[in-house]
């Protein structure tokens, strides 16, 4: 390595540069935070029920089988757009009933097919979960996923 670069100069570049990039990053995330809250998600529809649904999602660790907006495990289908896939945009009642019926019918027990556990959720919890998935499907994700298959 070049003789001209001394160790203490290298050290100063490291600390100075890191602070520089950190400040930019923090500024951008702050901006993004506001963007999410005001533009890409709908805080008005972020009801108590949606929040409760998020907690049910977490309590049962759905993320360790499914992806949600492409993050999570790859063992089961993407659920960020499951509301759309089930036709929720045209027929919200129908989609809600189908999603709830799906949850209640697990595990399928079909030989050779991946199994989803039975989480024994109450009717109300199922509604909250559906509300959460519906809210999630309405996030502006720059048009991801490419198609309904998720």
């Amino acid at each position, binding site marked *: 390595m070049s003789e001209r*670069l001394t160790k203490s100069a290298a050290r100063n570049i490291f600390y100075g540069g890191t602070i520089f990039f950190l400040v930019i990053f923090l500024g951008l995330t702050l901006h993004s935070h506001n963007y999410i809250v005001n533009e890409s*998600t709908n805080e008005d529809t972020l009801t108590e029920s949606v929040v409760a649904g998020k907690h049910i999602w977490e309590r049962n660790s759905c*993320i360790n089988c499914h992806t949600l907006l*492409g993050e999570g495990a790859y063992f089961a289908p993407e659920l960020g757009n499951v509301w759309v896939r089930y036709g929720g945009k045209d027929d919200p009642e129908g989609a809600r009933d189908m999603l709830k019926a799906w949850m209640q019918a697990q595990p399928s027990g079909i030989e050779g097919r991946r199994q989803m556990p039975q989480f024994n959720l109450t009717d109300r919890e199922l509604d909250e979960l559906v509300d959460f998935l519906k809210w999630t499907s309405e996030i502006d994700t720059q048009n991801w996923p490419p*198609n309904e298959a998720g």
Partner: protein
Amino acid sequence: MKYQSQKVALYYIYGALALFAAQILFGVVAGTVYVLPNLFSEILPFNVIRMIHTNALIVWLLMGYFGAAYYLLPEECETEIHSPKLAIIQFWLFLIAAGAAVVGYIFGIHEGREFLEQPLPIKVGIVVVALMFLYNTTMTLLKGRKTAVSNVLMVALWFVALLFLFAFYNPSNLAVDKMYWWYVVHLWVEGVWELIMASILAFLMIKMTGVDREVVEKWLYVMVSLTLFTGILGTGHHYYWIGTPGYWQWIGNVFSTLEVVPFFAMVVFCFYMVWKGGRDHPNKSALLWSLGCSVMAFFGAGVWGFMHTLSSINYYTHGTQVTAAHGHLAFYGAYVMLNLAIFTYALPYLRGREPYNQQLNMWGFWITTSGMAFMTFTLTFAGVVQTHLQRVLGMNYMDVQDQVALFYWMRLGSGIAVLIGVTFIIWALVVPPRAASVRAKISQPAE
């Protein structure tokens, strides 16, 4: 070994190896459920298996870093650990917290964000462990000699703890939640953990090649600068599709592509030092792990990371088996191999013996590394097929999975190879050699 208190590292190394074994076993179980999906589905669902696999991984890697720090700080600072007793208490607390977490997971007690599933009391326990560690090591650093290796390592470990605090923040807005989740996950593996990697590799190079410390430490600062200058804004590659603004596509594309540079620099660094040093260190297996680490990290993180980091590609591959392929080789190459390098180097000194069981250790290296490489190939093929069928042609997820079933069988096969290789490695590190195979006495470190 020059300082008595370095011995506390032994606890951490053995604890880490035990959790490593658990991680691999659960990995094999997870891989088996992929091909035989009805297995265990009633008693141990896939999400719990996966949680244990990934959490055991993270915890043993952290435990390894703690051990590495306790081993190298006395030599770097030229003083004993501030309180060896505190270090031992810290170890047991950490191990108990990890054990309690696993038992809890099996009984369905967990939180629900990927990798951060630890229940609140366990998270608090982790913070307490981190504080004990940081107090102990910082006191050691303050009273002793300050080198670039120890400074960078300590800065990194402080930030590992600070960033973990974001694990306590779980906003109800999912998009906000996701944005800060990456503060822990990305800024760990592509930020401060990379600093740990660079500083431990620098330590190993100083010790094993005999190259002048001044040269190594200048390189160290350059490598860690490259890491953070690219890695911090490189977080943008996770902010493409989660509700964050579109400008992250530009930032993510540019900076995460540049993230390949520090990984390449680490390869050049390691090979150049070994070449320049021209010294024949008796611990050949430790050298093999060190060089292997830089190379496999370059492939796993650098090449496999770049493969899907451009937003126009990531739009299609996001959240497919391509991600799983990259996750495996990156974690293995960078952090698993790093820990095994420092364990292989330190154990002979800690136990006052020759660098024993070298042959077996090197067999373990080649079998495990080949197994992980093959696993990465199979998952990459599965991911490419999945991307085409599902993301381009719009075929239903479950139907696509049936199409790639063969790759999952091959993943399981390579997983079993990894299991065998890991058995060799752990055996070579833990079981003492027969007296007959004792070789020439290990030479003292370069300094």
